[in-house]
Structures are given as structure tokens and as C-alpha cells.
């Protein structure tokens, strides 16, 4: 099994940490992982993306032009990465902030109202966990127990009281994802 994922959105949306949690989840179940961020003069509000690869085998290139899954969090990223999903691949997005929805017919498209749901849960910062839950519902590549282990390793100990809220957001994301 090899899953090649791009997660793309605004800086501050939790793009990089979502990738990190996925990466730690893969390690927790004995897989190889790579996590390659776009780096540069970036800041909150600017665009940010990360390529995450989880595989049973040695990972070749950490940088890719085509992906099995794209998790898209803003319009700029939709413009840039819709065409990079492999035929038959998966595109997951939050319609909030997307003015031009994806048009491709040869890929599986899913959406989740993650921004609104995060507000309902009372903490907009769990937005990325809603997206992660939605993704794991579509592609259960890592077991939930390993996701929780990954969360524990990614979140500093002083914030471990937020683990139940994060888990709740993942569950909510799993329930709320819709096929387009």
C-alpha cells in the first residue's frame, strides 16, 4: 500500500499539523512516511501545503506532481491541485471559501462543511481534525487507535486536555462527509 496525499490551504488552517498527525499515525502502525512541506517566506494567511506519503515500502520521491488524494482548503489550492489528482483518485474539500467547485469527472469528489462544524463544536482550531476525520472515512489507511497515538505525539503535553475534543472532531468529520 502506498498513499500519496497533498494537503493544501492557508497557513494557520492546520495543514502541516494534519500531515504530521497522519505521519505519526503511519509510524505507529509500522509504515514508512514522508512529510514534505512547501517552505519559504510564508505566514499566517499565505498559502501552505504539505505532501504526505504513507507506504508499506521504502518511499522514493518525497516530492510529487500527481497524488492519490488531494485535501483542498482554499480556492488557490483548488486552482493549483485539482488537475494533479490521479485519474480515479480522491479530492476532498470544504465548500467554505471555494467559489469554483471542482469539475473533474474522472475522480471521486467529497465535501465536508468543516468550517461550520468546527464553529458548532465551539473551537475553530479543530477544523483540520474534521477534515482528517472525513479523509479517514473515505480512506481508512490508518487505524483510529494509531491516529490517537499520532495525535498524542503531535500535540505538546500541555495541550493533552484537548485530545477528547480533537477525537470528537475526527468522529464528527467521519459522520459528516458527503460524496459529490
Amino acid at each position, binding site marked *: 500500500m502506498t498513499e500519496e496525499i497533498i494537503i493544501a490551504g492557508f497557513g494557520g488552517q492546520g495543514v502541516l499539523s494534519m500531515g*504530521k498527525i497522519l505521519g505519526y499515525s503511519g509510524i505507529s502502525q509500522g509504515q514508512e512516511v*514522508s512529510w514534505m512541506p512547501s517552505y519559504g517566506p510564508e505566514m499566517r494567511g499565505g498559502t501552505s501545503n504539505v505532501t504526505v506519503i504513507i507506504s508499506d515500502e521504502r518511499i*522514493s*520521491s518525497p516530492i510529487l506532481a500527481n497524488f492519490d488524494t488531494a485535501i483542498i482548503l482554499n480556492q488557490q489550492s483548488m486552482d493549483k491541485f485539482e488537475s494533479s489528482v490521479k485519474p480515479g483518485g480522491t479530492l476532498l474539500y470544504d465548500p467554505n471559501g471555494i467559489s469554483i467547485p471542482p469539475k473533474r469527472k474522472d475522480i471521486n469528489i467529497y465535501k465536508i462543511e468543516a468550517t461550520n462544524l468546527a464553529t458548532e463544536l465551539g473551537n475553530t482550531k479543530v477544523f483540520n481534525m474534521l477534515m482528517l476525520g472525513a479523509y479517514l472515512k473515505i480512506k481508512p489507511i490508518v487505524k483510529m487507535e494509531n491516529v490517537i497515538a499520532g495525535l498524542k505525539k503531535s500535540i505538546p503535553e500541555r495541550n493533552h486536555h484537548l485530545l477528547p475534543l480533537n477525537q470528537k472532531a475526527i468522529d464528527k468529520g467521519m459522520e459528516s462527509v458527503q460524496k459529490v
Partner: protein
Amino acid sequence: MEKELRLMKGNEAVAEAAIRSGADAYFGYPITPQSEVLEHLMLEKPHERTGMVVLQAESEVSAINMVYGAAGCGRMVMTSSSSPGISLKQEGISYIAGAELPCLILNVVRGGPGLGTIQPAQSDYFQSTKGGGHGDYRLIVLAPASVQEMYDFVELGFNLAFKYRNPVMIQSDGIIGQMMEKLEIGPQKQRRSAEEIAKQCPWATVGKPENRERNIITSLDLVSARQEQHNHKLQAKYKEIQEKEVRYELINCDDAEYIIVSYGSSARLSMKAMDILRAKGVKVGILRLITLFPYPTKIIQELTPKVKGFLAVEMSCGQMVEDLRLAVEFKKPVEHFGRVGGMVPSPEEIVEALEQKIIGG
């Protein structure tokens, strides 16, 4: 004992490896894309863990001269920077090579020339392998292609540096430095005691006992005949390194008709290209260089009669390819492919380059 696995950036892995391999000191100055080395060291407070000294110097020039001083005392010492900062360090590196001192230097290469860009490149190959500073000298140059190798090459680098009393460079790039991968961490090693250092490094300036002459650390000798002798001694050492320390990895070369010669992040991109080409039935293998100096000339000469051509893939306008051409001696076609200025080639572009330049050429 259960293995300790972490998800870490390449830069952080180097810093953690320095602490765990029992290094005595790190001197550096921040620059993208390698600032996480100093950041991780500051965060981990190694002085409390092992007594290791970590200092942000006032400049790169200052940092390399602190390395020179500590190395002269037989200490396990390192510095890190990225391309423009490494250029600033060249005078000090030349002095350290001339004085025959061990140290470790990490270059997380970014695109140049000049301040260039902060994005990844491999355009410092000439600087790393052909001298860099003035005078006839060589560094041992290691090229990690994964976060694990970033970690492992720190201890390997220190071992080689002390074995040959020679500066060792790890030439990485923005991709390997910035990406996170699964990393297996080794146990904490004790730093050597002052007595152990005095015993292991009889040349070091650690205080003169009654029973020996004083040790002098210098690269200066104004007596030309002696300076010539010193140069011959250095060259003999580099020859020994070329004979004994070549490291490389062969991937799918047994039945290969075409060979991609590459290193570091480019080798990772090339592995993906190889998978695409193999799926099309093209027999491609990869020679991944682990040491850039010494260059694996011998294995290339063994492969040359068996293959139809070589493609050097590197993120430069064509530097490593020159050593490849020297090794192949024009017996088979040798071409180069690379993107530069911080642009990273896609695996598909490497596929296209091999098909057009070597197979179709």
C-alpha cells in the same frame, strides 16, 4: 531494547544526532533552510543533557573559527549553514584542512549564485568536492538522501574526521533538511573525558605535560620545502581516502541498460522516475552516490561496458556530471539533467530527460 522511532525533520535529526553521538560543541549562525539545526539544539539544552556547548556566533566566519579552535583542542565539534554561509566559512575550512583538524560541517544547500534563493539546490558540488577554499585540499563529503541518513552521517562523519584528521562535510539540501520522515534514534553516548581526548588526540593542544614537546596547531609554514612535504602528506591522505572510503548504493543495476547517477534528494526523485520507466519496460538502474568525495569512479568503470548510457541527475547546471564523464572516459554516452535556482524536477521530467537524451539520443 525497543527502537525509539520519531517523525523528525532532517535538520532536527542532525542536531539530535550531534547530541547523542557525544559531540562537545556546535557553533553556528542561522540561515534558511537549515535554521532548525540551531533551533533544535537550543530547545534541547544539550548543556544540561551532556555538557555539550551550543553557541550562536555573531557570524558564519566567527562560527567556523570557533570550530577551528575547539578542533585544535581535540574536541568533537561541528557547524552548519546553507550555501552563502558556507561560502563565508571557506577561509576557516581551508585553515582547518591545512592544520589537519577533525570537524563536521553541514551544508543544507540552497540555490545560488549569491544570495540566490532559499529553495533546494545541489549547486555547491564543486565547492564541496574540489576544495572550496584556497590551496590543495579535500573534504570528505557525505550526501544523505533521507532523514535517517542525516542522523546516521553525523556519527559516521565524526568518525571519519577523527580517523583522517580531516574536515568532513555533509552536503544536504533544502528537501532533505526540511522534510520529516520516520527516524530511528540511537542511544545517548557519553562525551569523552579530558583524559580520553588527551590520549586519543596526541596532537591536540590540551595542556603541555613535562614529557613531550608542545603541540602547535597552525596551517602556516614559511619554509617552502617543509610546506611542500606537508602538501605531499595531505595528498597521500586524500589518496588513502579515495581507496578506502568510497560509499554508494546500487539500485536495480544488475540488469540495467541505462543508469541514472544521482545523490541526495535528486536520487529520491530519480527512484520514482525509475519506477515509472521500469513499469514501461525500460531497464533503468540508479547509482546513488553516498560519498561525493571520494567519487565512486571504480564502480562506474565496472558498469560502463554493461550499459548503453548514463544520465546524471542533479539540481545544478552540470557539476557532478563532470566527474561522471571522467570516469566513463567517453566510452558510453553521458548526459545531464537538472533544474536549478530552487526549482525541483518532477520524476516525470527525469523520465522524459532519460527518454530523449539517452534512449532516443
